[in-house]
């Protein structure tokens, strides 16, 4: 930090940009408080803010809804937080073209509402949609447990405006659905955790909402049966929107009003024309002949909202959230292995939701005790996952162990290459310093 607070106030005072250094205590990032929070109202103001910050070697944390600020390695230092909350306008929605362009501070809820008025959607379903923003969700880049078959978050972005660390405003892509004009720079920022630039505007390609939706719950008692069910549906010629599974204690923790007596449940989300959904549902029953019970729920959005919010809001002190990615065919073996860890330690309360189309699992661990124990648990989980060539992201871990473990499993080769990107696009380590994979 090269400036004190009065100096900072003076610098920004000249620009007319809103700066708040009074109530900053609620905006902790890794136990550090920013000196001030800046609220740019235009991209130009955002650009000026970053220009001032980089010229004065200040460290900046971009902030959306602040719902995922605990994701990432321990930050090296923080001087300013830039809130995107005033940049939340819809710039251009063209329903007939199935495209939309928004400022990145818009909340997911506001965004989805706009689209659903036209029976449209973008497959983004993060936890806490009323506070999470488009910018934050893209910067984090997870597709999450709830996703629509085939839809990957990064595939829906067709253009972006980015403000780079030195304040340069950069446009990439466009507002049309098919485009190979120049490099696709937006890919650097989706999942880049705000370490190479701040996402200011995003253009999406949107999809029509399915006419009709149904969810089928398939209760089973043996893990082998669960494996069979998810496998058989994934391999069949029907294409559900999601195939998710969990054990019954996890299901109960979601507080879904639906009685289950089995040990596990597979949740199959179907969408499409009414007849099509009906046919898929019949097919599922045919495919899973060995199952005796199916629960079909017509109005089922509430289940998927609960699944999306799984684990949230987090209180990081006694809860840990771990995200695993593997091949879809390995998810059940991995989660079985992880559940076994339970027995070799003092009791861990695992709750796990697995997605069988993309192969992710989200693991919640509660009742954590000492740091030593948590670190060992993480090590053990990593070992199990690596046996199946999967990878681990520690989404949310207690603050006091952050300095002792790496959040992402990235290989050293890739980290080295990534370091060159950081050097090129953020040479003074202005943005989120130290927080990304490999402490970039």
């Amino acid at each position, binding site marked *: 930090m090269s400036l004190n607070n009065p100096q900072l106030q003076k610098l920004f005072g000249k620009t007319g940009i809103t700066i708040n250094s009074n109530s900053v205590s609620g905006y902790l990032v890794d136990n550090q408080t920013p000196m001030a929070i800046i609220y740019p109202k235009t991209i130009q103001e955002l650009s000026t803010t970053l220009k001032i910050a980089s010229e004065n070697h200040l460290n900046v944390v971009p902030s959306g809804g602040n719902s995922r600020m605990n994701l990432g390695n321990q930050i090296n230092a923080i001087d300013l937080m830039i809130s995107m909350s005033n940049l939340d306008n819809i710039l251009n929605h*063209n*329903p*007939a*073209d*199935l495209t939309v362009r928004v400022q990145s501070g818009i909340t997911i809820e506001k965004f989805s509402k706009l689209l659903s008025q036209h029976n449209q959607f973008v497959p983004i379903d993060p936890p806490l949609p009323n506070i999470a923003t488009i910018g934050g969700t893209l910067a984090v*880049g997870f*597709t999450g447990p709830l996703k629509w078959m085939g839809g*990957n978050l*990064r*595939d829906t972005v067709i253009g972006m405006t*980015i403000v*780079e660390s030195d304040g*340069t*405003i*950069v*446009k*990439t892509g*466009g*507002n*049309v*659905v*098919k*485009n*190979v*004009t*120049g*490099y*696709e720079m937006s*890919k*650097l920022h989706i*999942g*880049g955790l705000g370490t190479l630039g701040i996402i200011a505007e995003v253009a999406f390609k949107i999809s*029509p909402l399915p006419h009709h939706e149904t969810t089928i719950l398939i209760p089973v008692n043996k893990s082998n049966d669960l494996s069979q069910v998810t*496998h058989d549906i994934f391999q069949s*010629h029907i294409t559900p929107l999601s195939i998710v599974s969990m054990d019954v204690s996890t299901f109960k923790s979601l507080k879904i009003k639906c009685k289950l007596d089995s040990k596990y449940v597979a949740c199959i989300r179907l969408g*499409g*024309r009414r*007849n*099509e959904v*009906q*046919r898929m549902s019949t097919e599922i029953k045919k495919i899973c002949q060995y199952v005796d019970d199916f629960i079909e729920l017509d109005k089922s959005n509430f289940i998927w909202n609960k699944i999306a919010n799984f684990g949230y809001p987090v209180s990081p002190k006694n809860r840990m959230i771990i995200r695993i*990615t593997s*091949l879809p*065919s390995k998810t059940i073996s991995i989660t079985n292995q992880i559940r076994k860890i339970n027995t070799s330690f003092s009791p861990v309360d695992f709750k796990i939701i697995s997605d069988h189309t993309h*192969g*992710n699992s989200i693991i919640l661990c509660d009742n954590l005790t000492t740091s030593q124990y948590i670190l060992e648990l993480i090590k053990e989980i990593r070992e199990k996952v690596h046996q199946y060539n*999967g*990878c681990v992201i520690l989404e949310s871990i207690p603050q006091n162990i952050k300095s002792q473990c790496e959040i992402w*499993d*990235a*290989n050293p*080769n*890739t*980290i080295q*290459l*990534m370091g060159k*990107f950081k050097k*090129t*696009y953020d040479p003074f380590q202005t943005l989120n310093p130290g927080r990304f994979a*490999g402490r970039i």
Partner: protein
Amino acid sequence: MSLNEIIYKFENIVGSSYVIHATEDLIAYEYDGSIDRSLPNIVVIPKNTKQISEILKICYTNQVPVIARGAGTGLSGGAIAQNGGVSIGFSRMTEIIEIDPENHLAIVEPGVINSELSEKVSEYNLYYAPDPSSQQVCTLGGNIAENSGGLHCLKYGVTTNHIIGMEIALSNGDLVWVGDKTRESPGYDLRGIVIGSEGTLALATKLVVRLLKKPETVKTFLAAFKSISDASEVVSQIISSGIIPSAIEMMDKLAISAVESSINPGYPHNAEAILLVEIDGLHEAVIEESKDITQIFKQYDLLELREAQDEKERINLWKGRKGVLGALGHLAPNYYLVDGTIPRTKLVEVLEKINQISKKIKLPIANVLHAGDGNLHPAILFNERNTSERDKALEAGAEILKICVEVGGVLSGEHGIGLEKQEYMPLMFNQSDLKSMSNLIYAFDSPNFNPNKIFPTGKKNITEINQSGIISQSGSEIFI
């Protein structure tokens, strides 16, 4: 290091039969699908990643330009060695390394031909979705470099949506995995950056591709219109009604007459425009969607609405579309095929403007469109020997691209920038945008990879620029 020393080193790596350096042998490598011509100094054809790595090390130390080459079907001059250098051919890296039907994945080498992959995985009822019209010959490596689309990308997306990981070779010969077999891998999405980078940042050496289940039912319609604006309106209507067909293709009167006089697929002669609309999916969905689409069609005064009754008729309907570029050869000795994308709702307006341009320059323009995506391919017909016609065609191409950008569209929907459109980049991007993009070359340390492409040089004048877009001859199986 002298040229001869480099040749000698390459021969040690790959064997002398796979290093080509005699001028008469190099000629086969001087062009691609465009008409630019330029000889590389050496062509080297490695067998595996290790050999590529060793070759690249030598090129890096000597700062020799490296130009990757797939099948050479690119239409923007991407595989042309305009400043000489080493062309790396992928024709021996054609192995399908692994098919994982359980996870709907395959790992392949970049020299694999696009359609071969779908054939190989067909026994598992799977296929590789991106289907550029050149799919019988183009390589997956070339597809990656151009982020190629295809007829069915309207519903299924382009190359980047179907490649989940790659092994890439960096300019210094290092090999790095970006993405892998899992759908989310940690770190910056360098996979997404390399795809579409036209061989300027890294070479793809292994690809993990996503495979899709084959659709249960497919239905294809031909609708013939009395006006091109009706056809354009129908495209918007279908899209905004919440149906995403797998393909919506449009051809105008001139294109129809060209195919009718050569291939004769049975399109109505008197139509101002036809649409080919294909929908696929589960039987029930296809039935309902076809009802809705028929309703939309019926709001217009159609000359004809035909639904393919069987696979034979379906193939026949597509045959005309597939053969259109070859057929244009019957109308004029040359054509300049323009590639640009516009918002779909601007089709009526832009096609009218193209029509006016055609009248103004007194040259016919045949329109063939991936209409569902708003991807235009106006083909300006002319005779190369008549220099005034040629210049007018080139200027008209430039004008069309400007119109695309003005209505909120872009310079290229699927053929890339390469040499053809590099000088137009400032129409869409300012200095800061371009600087940010070119910074990637520094981050990848790849100034010797396919140098002097994509970015404007400011040197060429308009009549030189476009030459690469002109295709003088095309076969009957051509399908753009």
